[in-house]
């Protein structure tokens, strides 16, 4: 038990990898055994992550990072096997293990070709994603970041739709282009740290303690920004997303939207903000990031409004929702950041479920064209009900999850500037419009198309892929306190790093409330003076 407790992260991380090995010994003909094995491994991985829920708040309450595991890996370059989680990564890991299992469960009947390879890819993908959220060593992080690209490439490229090769290559190259820039940023910090201290290390916690020259911070910020912004994706780096989603198999879309996109926002929160506090709080940089976020919110929603393909519509809605997440991050205050992380989880739940829902109908009708559907609530009432709940959670109806995240983000944004909140609120109105319209066109009205009249309602397995997400959505909507509690500490630590005065007493003369709070005056100094350490 003690061993399991101390190595819980490694256990969660390596269950999928180890689970891949027996797959090689199962005959490719025996699809049923392969399916069972894939599902069992993912379920066991989910079970393995459950103890975290009980242990997390009790574990080392005074430490920012918990369940740390640390071993030398490549001593010559200072790379370590260094895992550890805080509240932010904890929530994203739980999201990954839950969605990973549900995505695999949803593939039971929809994948008939190359079944063994499919499950192997999914297990590898799962390990890569978990590793990204657990790593506290930059080198290790980068390895996982890239590892997860490969299985996703194959999932889209092999089991995808008609334009799968185009989409897969686009996805891979686009993301890789960003990652390479990010790698440059990492190496810049790595060598600069060596130049300053004589030590080679990729240890993120050590790098965070270092004071980086302002000029370097700007360059590294933009390098990271491109890498993360492509992953999120922020406007205008988002166009790989609709293609990848439309072509990917259902489970691929679920993971893509549910987890992969969160790596971008996670990157901003985990690395950009605390490593580069002066760059991240520079008013001009903040302005760029916020304007891009707001464009994403409104633009994504408007483009969604006019899509004819269900999957594409939901893909663009992701752009809009992730715009809220990045807006919250760059509000740079506790409300914005907490809301952002909660909204990331929410988006995983709601959009993951939406893609499952589209997948269910695609499996039956082999089309995602909205005009091919209509009146489905007449023939598939259970499906219609679940779709309704998920749609409501996506448009941010109170007592469901989306509202909690959106409200907290908007509140955080409002605290910086009412204009930000006012623009973002437009996204909420449009969000209701495109989702309700989608629902109306697919579910309501008479069921006239003879192909739709014979559709079967959901099976027990299919219902079970959605029910956990619905329960989770209600949980966050009704009682989000546990989520806020785990986020409180890490978020406050980040805010304090960005703006050491934030939690100081009120009497200190502060700027008027409408100006950005997290922008100390010293940041306005010209950048050529930045070489000196602060």
């Amino acid at each position: 038990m003690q061993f399991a407790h101390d190595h819980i992260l490694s256990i969660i991380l390596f269950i999928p990898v180890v689970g891949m090995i027996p797959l090689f010994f199962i005959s490719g003909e025996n699809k049923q055994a392969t399916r069972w094995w894939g599902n069992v491994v993912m379920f066991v991985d989910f079970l393995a992550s459950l103890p975290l829920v009980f242990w997390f708040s009790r574990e080392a309450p005074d430490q920012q990072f918990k369940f740390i595991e640390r071993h030398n890996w490549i001593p010559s370059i200072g790379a370590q096997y260094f895992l550890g989680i805080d509240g932010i990564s904890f929530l994203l890991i739980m999201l990954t293990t839950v969605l990973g299992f549900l995505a695999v469960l949803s593939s039971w009947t929809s994948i008939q070709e190359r079944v063994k390879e499919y499950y192997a890819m999914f297990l590898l993908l799962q390990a890569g994603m978990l590793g990204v959220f657990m790593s506290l060593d930059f080198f290790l992080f980068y390895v996982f970041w890239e590892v997860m690209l490969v299985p996703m490439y194959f999932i889209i490229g092999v089991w995808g739709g008609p334009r799968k090769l185009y989409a897969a290559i686009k996805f891979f190259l686009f993301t890789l282009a960003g990652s390479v820039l990010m790698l440059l940023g990492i190496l810049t910090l790595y060598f600069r740290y060596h130049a300053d201290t004589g030590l080679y290390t990729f240890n993120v916690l050590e790098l965070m303690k270092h004071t980086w020259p302002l000029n370097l911070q700007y360059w590294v910020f933009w390098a990271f920004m491109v890498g993360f912004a492509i992953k999120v994706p922020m406007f205008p780096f988002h166009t790989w997303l609709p293609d990848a989603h439309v072509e990917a198999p259902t489970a691929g879309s679920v993971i893509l939207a549910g987890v992969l996109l969160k790596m971008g926002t996670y990157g901003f929160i985990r690395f950009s903000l605390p490593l580069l506090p002066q760059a991240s709080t520079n008013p001009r940089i903040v302005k760029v990031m916020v304007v891009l976020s707001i464009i994403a919110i409104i633009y994504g929603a408007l483009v969604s409004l006019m899509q004819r393909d269900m999957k594409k519509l939901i893909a663009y809605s992701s752009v809009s929702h992730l715009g809220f997440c990045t807006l919250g991050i760059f509000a740079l205050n506790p409300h914005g950041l907490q809301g952002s992380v909660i909204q990331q989880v929410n988006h995983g739940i709601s959009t993951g479920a939406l893609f499952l829902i589209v997948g269910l109908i695609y499996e039956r009708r082999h089309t995602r064209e909205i005009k091919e559907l209509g009146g489905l609530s007449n023939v598939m009432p259970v499906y219609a009900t679940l779709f309704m709940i998920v749609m409501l959670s996506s448009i941010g109806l109170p007592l469901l999850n989306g509202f909690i995240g959106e409200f907290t983000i908007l509140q955080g944004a409002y605290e910086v500037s009412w204009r930000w909140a006012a623009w973002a609120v437009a996204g909420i109105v449009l969000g209701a419009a495109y989702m309700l319209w989608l629902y109306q066109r697919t579910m309501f009205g008479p069921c006239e198309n003879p192909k739709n009249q014979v559709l079967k309602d959901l099976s027990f397995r299919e219902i079970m892929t959605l029910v956990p997400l619905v329960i989770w959505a209600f949980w966050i909507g009704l009682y989000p306190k546990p989520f806020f509690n785990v986020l409180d500490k890490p978020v406050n630590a980040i805010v304090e790093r960005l703006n050491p005065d934030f939690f100081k007493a009120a009497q200190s003369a502060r700027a008027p409330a409408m100006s950005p709070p997290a922008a100390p005056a010293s940041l306005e100094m010209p950048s050529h003076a930045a070489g000196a350490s602060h």
Partner: protein
Amino acid sequence: MHFLNYIWLIPVLPVLGAAIQLLLGRRLSNKAVSAVSVGLPGLSFLWALGCFFQLLSLPAQANHTFTKVLYSWLPAGAFHLADGSLAHLNVYVGFQLDPLSSVMMLVVTGVGFLIHVYSIGYMGHEGGYYRFFGYLNLFMFSMLVLVLADNYLMMFVGWEGVGLSSYFLIGFYFHRKSASDAGKKAFVVNRIGDAAFLLGMMLMAVTFGTLDFLPITEAARGGRFAVGDGVITAICILLFIGAAGKSAQIPLYVWLPDAMEGPTPVSALIHAATMVTAGVYMVARSNALYVLAPTALALVGAIGAATAIWAASIGLVQNDIKRVLAYSTVSQLGYMFLACGVGAFGAGIFHLMTHAFFKALLFLGAGSVIHALSGEQDLRKMGALWRKIPTTAWTMLAATLAISGAPLLSGFFSKDEILWQAFASPYGNKLLWSVGVVTAGLTAFYMFRLFFLTFAGNSRVPHEVEQHIHESPSSMTVPLICLGLGAVGAGYVGWPKVLGGSNWFGRFLDPVFENPALRPALQHTWNLEFGLMLLSVGVALVGFFGAYRWYAKQPGIAERVAAAAGAGYTLLLNKYYIDELYDALFVNRAKDLGSALAAFDLGVVDGGVNGVGWSTRMSAELSRLWDTWVIDGLVNVLAFVVKVLSYPARVLQTGLLQSYAWFITLGVFIFMVYYLIYF
């Protein structure tokens, strides 16, 4: 039993019903469905009565206010207030019962319960019976959360919840496109208001550091803010935009008439008696803020008065019985906002309460008429129903009299209090008052027009329908009678001083609307108030006689007047073309923008990406050409040169022994010749 401690049961009982219906309802018989879904709201009504009487018996110094906090809902961490101090935003799930919310609670549970009972009969033959009751229960839950919340965010939960249930219920006949269109329109228009409400809440959070009613009221009354404070004015205007969405005021009223696509009990409950009054409740709840913002109050009053007369004018000519009532509702809500706008929040809530009775009754009566006529809603195909459905007719007459302001019926008291306040309050003026009086005349006209067209004159009912006319079952008529009693008597709780009463209702609400500024101004002469009262009754009589002459005595005049009015009539009949205008200005423009951006996304943004891909491929192609023709070409040229130069040497290297022998022979021969010549 301590009812107040379990006040949360009041909203939770109906939501239990909703959960049962929506999860298991398909398997239940109609009897079981009605038992659960009517029984639970009934229980919740009884519980509400218990709470009400316990509230009355609370000690007076508590201002009749009771709060019950259940748990911490949204503990969203630290933030800076506008004045720079650090605060923590922590929103609780909590309930507050005070005179204002207890009035709302009783109206919602009481009228709501009657409408549930009515629905048993009305919806008896419809498919999706369980679904209907599930949604109706969900609505009750949301509305009760809205009125019982102790903070703005919880209120917003109910606020969105009622919008959602209204969306479901308007679109209940979802196979009809107009119904699901109307549901969507209602939700989206409401969302526009909600967006402003959200912004208003955020501004409150950074101003007060909390969203709870009591601390905000306390801070607003504590003298921290001057009258006319810009921030408070901004909050009030944002909240009012939210209220205008929910309560169908200009310019966001367009969804309510379309909402008549829903089943009639829904129109009665949601789109007349309760949900649409949520905006009035919210403004009244925020009265401490509004009295600090005279500009916002003036806006509320002006919009209210304008909506009242605007909607009444449309209602004059509509031919669909439910649409007349819908515009009437918009108009009456305008009255309530007019009252709030002149600072007479109590009068607004009084009218809200009496309106709940007579408007619910009018809709349910209209439903009974529609039921009797096998679904007919067109006034032009009714007439002479007085003797055929007498219970409906009598109760409808009571409600029509009440809404028209016939003396000593409920509407008379509340409407006259509003008009008097509009005239006499320091926030009021003669213009608002005269708009109110004219609207009262219009109201009497269109209501009696409706009444005469339905019940009097000659029958215009098609013959085959006429065979089946029947009075509704008792599950429908009993609620009609109960509401009829309310429509007649509900005003007595506010019997005004001018007629020798004591206005118990106003005094009961006073602790909520404590507003010292208003007190002295209402010192007035008895003669003036009584004279104005007579005047407004006179105006209503004019409206009544107009309708009587045109529609009962000499039917046919109306058509001639309509023909004479020409364009004006068409304009009214088409509701001033506002829907068309909004479609042209906003809906279609949003769609166009969406299409344009989608094209932009595909062409420019994605085009850029594909362009990068294409140029990479092209430069790869160029590199290939360069590599093949230049780099590799150079190598090949070099090789070629070597090849050419080496040609002679290579020709010699044939590998044939004979040629080598031949060359040796030749070499020997040349050598010998050379030797012979030079040596």
